[in-house]
């Protein structure tokens, strides 16, 4: 049962980490627009640097 003495503190570290990430997500407005993110996957590819590629279909 001594393994609990290691595992429980580890679980607390993970918990605090998760809470920290959640707080960061809220602070940086990640939950402001929940609708249009779902559309991103349907859009044409973007470049890695975030700039939108020109579509040259015509």
């Amino acid at each position, binding site marked *: 049962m001594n393994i609990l003495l290691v595992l429980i503190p580890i679980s607390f570290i993970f918990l605090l980490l998760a809470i920290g990430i*959640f707080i960061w997500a809220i602070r940086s407005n990640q939950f402001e627009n929940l609708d249009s993110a779902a*559309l991103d996957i349907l859009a044409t590819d973007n470049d890695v640097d975030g700039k939108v590629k020109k579509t040259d279909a015509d």
Partner: protein
Amino acid sequence: MNAIVNNIGGMIQTNANSVCFHCGQPINGNPVQEKIHGKLQHFCCTGCSAATQWINDAGLADYYHLRTQQAPQASTESIDLSAWDHADTLAQHSRASDQSDDSRDIIISVQGMHCAACAWLIDRALSTQKGVSEVSVNAVTGRLHLRWQQAQAPLSQLIACLQRLGYRAFLTRGSELEQSRTREKKQLLLRIGLAALVAMQTMMFAEALYLDTSNEMSMGTRDMFRWLCFVTSTPVVFYSGMPFLRGMLNEIRQKALGMDFLAASSILLAYFGSFYQTLIGGQHVWYDAAVMFVLFLLVARFLEYRTRQVAYEQSDALARAQPYLANVFRGEKQFSVPVNQLEVGDCLCVNPGESVAADGFLVSESASFDESLLTGEAQPVTKQRGDFVFAGSIGSLQSSRLQVSQVGRDTQLSQLLYRVELAQLKKSGVTHYAEKIARYFVLGILLIATMVFFYWQYTDASRAFEIALAVLVVSCPCALALALPAAFASAQSALAKIGVLSFNNDGLVTLAKVDAFIFDKTGTLTQGKITRSEDRYYVEDHNAALAIACALEKNSLHPLASAFPEHTSLQANNVQLIPTQGIQGEIDQKRYRIGRADFAAGQIDDGRLWLGDGERAMASFSLKDNVRDDAKDTVAGLRHADIQVHVVSGDAESKVAAIAGDIGIEHAIARQSPEQKQAYLKRLQADGHTVAMVGDGINDALVLASADLSIAMGGGAAIAQRSADMIICGEKLERILQARNIAIKTQAIIKQNLRWALLYNAIGIPVTAMGLIHPGLAALGMVCSSLLVSLNALRLKNVAART
């Protein structure tokens, strides 16, 4: 919302030649043609074609596939946006961001956002602009949050970008209000997130205790797990559960027990009971029940908050119409002054695309205004010199000048806003009643739980606390208390969507019960706009005769003036209005008369309007007040639902009978004074009918006031003054039918909700009292019950769309 993404996009393209590719409006006249992706597309205006070009060039053409709703029509007008860069505007509405650079934050309300693709488009379009570091768009609330550097990208330039796409930007009512709302939402999210994460951890520890079924765990390990549960559940109870604890304190202070009291006392009992058991090393702890209860309650509350938020944003559209800066002429110079410094008598200059800041009379010759925010009518309304212009309408086409007559709180718009806000705050009789029931319910539950506790104390003392707690938790006053407000909130939002403002929930309840409708004629069944039909001329030159008639009517306030809309250059002098006879005036030194046959042309009165010089007739016109297009269908729909339809009018017998016959109304009464109308209504009520009165709200206020339900047809913001339970904005009579559908559906949903809440409690409480359900499971049951009620109420939002 965005489920069937490609469907509508495809539909738009199939009949692309008759409707605009961008905004989907039918194309009148010559379409603007433009090559998009090698395919020729048609647009309703150059604004829309420019918007499409811009979207295409920015590589955002996917928008057309992603959208589920049409885009707003892009504007062709070039609009002066320099007010956005005004130091006052920036200081009042934006604030310095917490970044080290000189960027600022602003929240802007955007009109014209319909679906997630709009939010996507705006997000992409703005974030590619230089100087913009953060964009977040919320399509549900219509809010845009922007972080930008004024030096690199002036705000006006960013707003211009929005306008190019067809969206209209407005400053929000107050930045503090907006910020506090965002803060409130973030805090609620944080509470839920924390509760969820920590509750998982607590349950993990609690699970270890549950799995020890044969009591093999050493006392030390068991106590360690209990203390761990105590540590993790503490922040959940006291941070996440704070809204309930605070609610309980309020309820105790006001000596009115409610939902929060029951919720908070269950949480605290579970928490402190467990703590006590941990201290004395008792048999059971219920930390997991406490945290789960907090989590589930918060989720239910968040859903309710979202419902309320959407309803709130609907009414907030009105507030958008209030601009912050206005251009005024003082002396010969033009100043840009904050709206709260406007004074009555100021000369206001309204440029195309700007909101009118105050009520006033038009000084310019003529101008057109978009009153869509007030009436829902998309077509701009043309006004002549001296006409009244409402604050909140938007200037279109040309700039104009107004003389301010009412400012600030006195404007019709402000008064309407005030009434809507008041109505939202005010609790209606039925909601009050439901809350009262919930209060007794809470008392009853507390009593039952105490009895259960003492019963088990005698039979199995070790389980007494746990079972009493489970009874407290499983009972669900929330479903009872939520049944009405949730249904009303979504019904109100459904009504707002079809342009019906309901000022109290009681009206909604009555509407479902109404079995007799009384309509006023003029302005209700008819358009209230008199038009000419069947012109007869007795002289050679028809146009000259018509021009004379127009000139005579032009400067009169005669109600018949609207029958002569044609423009004429003729000027009538010495115009006199002779009551019950007609109008007399001089044109080119010759006297003309228009009015009754005996007055104007020396003939026998036949009900037509005659033009002449007093002896000889020149022309005669038949006047007609057009019946609304949807009047017949509406009446048929009402009669189909076994509702009596009456028309009561002050007008002449023949006209009323003709209209009643035309649209199929059996009971038509003519030549009625307001008192007689009221007596008629009272007779119907005495016969046991629930009567709704539909009028234009101006001259039948007396009758409206004594009806069980009063509905006013409202064109323009004058609706603010009218005393009606419900107002139908715009000109559609069939909205009565739609509103009735919503009202009936609301009643059905309330009944379902109440039945469910009673059934659930009737089964849940005895079963729990018998000791068959663990407190944690009880919490789940309770929350599922209130979720069901909330979700059931949300179904109302789509009722209007289906009818």
